[in-house]
């Protein structure tokens, strides 16, 4: 196999796939990237057996063929090469000679037959949607995924296809983020599936703001086809908890907040929230929220935020990180904050179907 390509194209191609490369050393082949040189393009595939990505880049292919090369090493070499024209030639023993300007590298690979093939999707249920919608949806929910491995069903985002709607849900037991996307699909395609964190992270990197994504759901696995890139992943088996139970029914008070102003205030005040209690307090009074934090033996911070508020005076405490996470990931200028009392969860909403439920922290008054 022999091809030449520009450094930019090669790097771009490798960047798409290299994050998946396994750090597990048990199977050496998994730290390799599969290169398949075909007419006018080289296809790249990596997998860690849970998640797999296939991408490609344009190249002048002189001789078709395939091999696998150590992904990280290849990437670092290509990145350091001085000239923009790079030629790669692989001999029958899977040794790759890389030439660029005055530089020459030879790295040893493994035969392509050893590379585990990506799963096939037959009789899969296929749904097509805009990449932008999915990108936006994941951005607004994925930060709430649980990292607690004993609650493995929460280690991913729920994709719930129901009644011409795709609902994305993520929760870690203290907070929950949920978002609906309008989508048309036949009734037979209704399903609840859990996509693991790693696949979600990779997907967020790959999704663009234009074009479409074709989602194929097979048994125990899912594929996202982004025209020139393909991501496949195993699904988390198990039942996602009944998240609807978490959402409070009616709100007593609603305040409308400017997202960025609110976020900046929180960020400043949280500088003095202690690591231990890690809470900041919101004191509501007429047309004002006072945000406070204090750590004994360190100091305290206070900031006032004028808002339209006519309800009763009360205080509620939250984990600042959990309150800032959605504010950072939302894009809207305005958010609504619904509250009941100091012991009930607060709910952040925006104009479109999204909500974020956050449990307050107990404060000794």
């Amino acid at each position, binding site marked *: 196999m022999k091809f030449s390509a520009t450094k930019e194209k090669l790097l771009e191609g490798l960047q798409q796939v290299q994050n998946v490369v396994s750090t597990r050393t048990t199977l050496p082949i998994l730290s390799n990237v599969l290169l398949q040189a075909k007419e006018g393009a080289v296809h790249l595939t990596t997998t*860690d057996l*849970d*998640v797999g990505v296939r991408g490609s880049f344009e190249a002048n292919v002189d001789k078709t063929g395939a091999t696998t090369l150590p992904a990280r090493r290849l990437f670092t070499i290509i990145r350091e090469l001085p000239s923009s024209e790079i030629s790669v030639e692989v001999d029958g023993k899977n040794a790759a000679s890389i030439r660029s300007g005055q530089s020459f590298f030879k790295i040893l690979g493994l035969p392509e037959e050893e590379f585990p093939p990506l799963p096939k999707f037959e009789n899969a249920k296929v749904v097509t949607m805009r990449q932008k919608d999915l990108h936006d949806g994941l951005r607004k929910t994925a930060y709430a995924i649980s990292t607690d*491995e*004993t*609650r*493995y*069903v*929460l*280690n*991913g985002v729920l994709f719930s296809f129901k009644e011409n709607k795709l609902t994305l849900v993520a*929760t*870690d*037991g*203290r907070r929950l983020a949920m978002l609906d996307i309008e989508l048309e699909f036949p009734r037979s395609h209704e399903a609840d599936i859990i996509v*693991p*964190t*790693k696949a979600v992270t990779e997907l967020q990197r790959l999704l663009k703001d234009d074009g479409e994504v074709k989602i194929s759901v097979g048994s*125990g696995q899912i594929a996202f086809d982004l025209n020139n890139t393909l991501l496949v992943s*195993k*699904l*988390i*088996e*198990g*039942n996602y*908890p*009944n*998240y609807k*139970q*978490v959402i*409070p*029914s009616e709100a007593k008070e609603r305040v409308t907040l400017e997202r960025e102003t609110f976020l900046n205030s929180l960020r400043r005040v949280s500088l003095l929230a202690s690591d231990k209690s890690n809470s900041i307090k919101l004191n509501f009074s007429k047309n004002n929220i006072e945000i406070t934090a204090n750590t004994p033996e360190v100091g305290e911070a206070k900031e006032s935020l004028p808002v339209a508020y006519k309800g009763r005076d009360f205080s509620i405490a939250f984990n600042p990180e959990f309150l800032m996470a959605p504010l950072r990931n939302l894009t809207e200028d305005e958010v609504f904050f619904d509250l*009941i*009392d100091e*012991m*009930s969860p607060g709910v952040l909403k925006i104009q479109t179907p999204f909500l974020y439920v956050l*449990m307050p922290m*107990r404060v000794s008054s």
Partner: protein
Amino acid sequence: MDERCKALWEKLSAALKPQVSADTFKRWFSAVELTKATDDELTFHVPNNIYQFWIESNHMTALQSAITDAVGAPRTVRFLTAESDDDNDFSAPEARKTNGSGHSKTVGLGLSLNPRNTFESFVVGPNNQIAHAACLAVAQAPARTYNPLFIYGGVGLGKTHLMQAIGQYLWAKKKTSKVMYLSSELFINEFIDAIQHNTLVKFRKRYRQADLLLIDDIQFLAGKERSQEEFFHTFNTLFDGHKQIVLSSDRPASEIANLEHRLVSRFEWGLTAELQPPDIETRLAILRKKARALEIKLHDDVYQFLATRIRSNVRRLEGALMRVASFASLSGKELTQETIEHLLKDILLEERRQTVTIEQIQRKVAEHFDVRLADMTSKRRPASIAFPRQVAMYLARELTKASLNEIGDAFGGRDHGTVLHACKLVKKRMHEQDNIRQTISFIDSALQR
């Protein structure tokens, strides 16, 4: 829900209500049932896992203080969901199913235990009965009966299996217990690392906090003085803190050369259990169990053949089974005695080397040349006796690991030079005379069957 639980739950609810909002109580606690109450544990039944997740994350302090109010002391709280009745709460960790990326850690308990190595998958026979019973006793009541427990035996007899089974048993029973499983080599490496990076305190803390310390292949500590000293202190700390220690080795503690006496005596303190090679029935049982686990179906003769021919080592036995089974499924051919023998050529050869004794050789040779067995060791040396004796010496040299002196001794106290001479002579005559070579190779193969 029996009457007692019902009454207790009412008390609990009353104590809980003022602590959470009315909406929270209605939403999360109205569907909860108290199903079991013991002196140290309360089991709550919840409709599904979101109740468990949410209550655990958000309302545990309220629940615990309500419990303290109602019964006077804190209790361990356990949740049971309708979905998980037969799934994740009680069963061993390998029952947890997921394909999530972080999953492998859950299965390995984060301590590199092979989930296959459990008590259930261990085949008990007369050879390992005591060791198995001791391990089970330790797993059920750590640090009570046998502490430390010292298991020893040859390669592939199940030392590691038993140790890991203890770890998994304990972990499955109590998820919070700190189980540490490692080989002594890893211990030494980490110790060296700790010295290098000046993190000895961290290193000590790590090991001395374990509830159960399992150290495999302790014989590698031999000759490593500072590691031994460090281990000695770790051992003492754990032992004094009534934590269970389990050690394994390929030989009894007293036979490990270059091991400090204070360690040897400590190792012999608790219970020492030996693992011996399995007898034929146990070997058959192991094969069948393994075959069932791997969903292999083979003819009874094949099991019989493998069990008879491979005696010394369970790992090798399982390897042979795998090889035969994969050949059968890949080629789809009928398995005859010849194909199996051909397949397992190397394993069988290795087996023979270990099992042929000098005595067997003498018997076979005497039988073949029609001389008395006593002639093998007698001082008489007419050619009709001397040559068979030399052949036997030659075979003993080839087929056993005995030294020249040992062979000499076995042949009536002869000098090692005599043995060497015999070997040379036989080799020479084998080279010169075809019929002698044939005779010897015939005896050789007869011995190895």
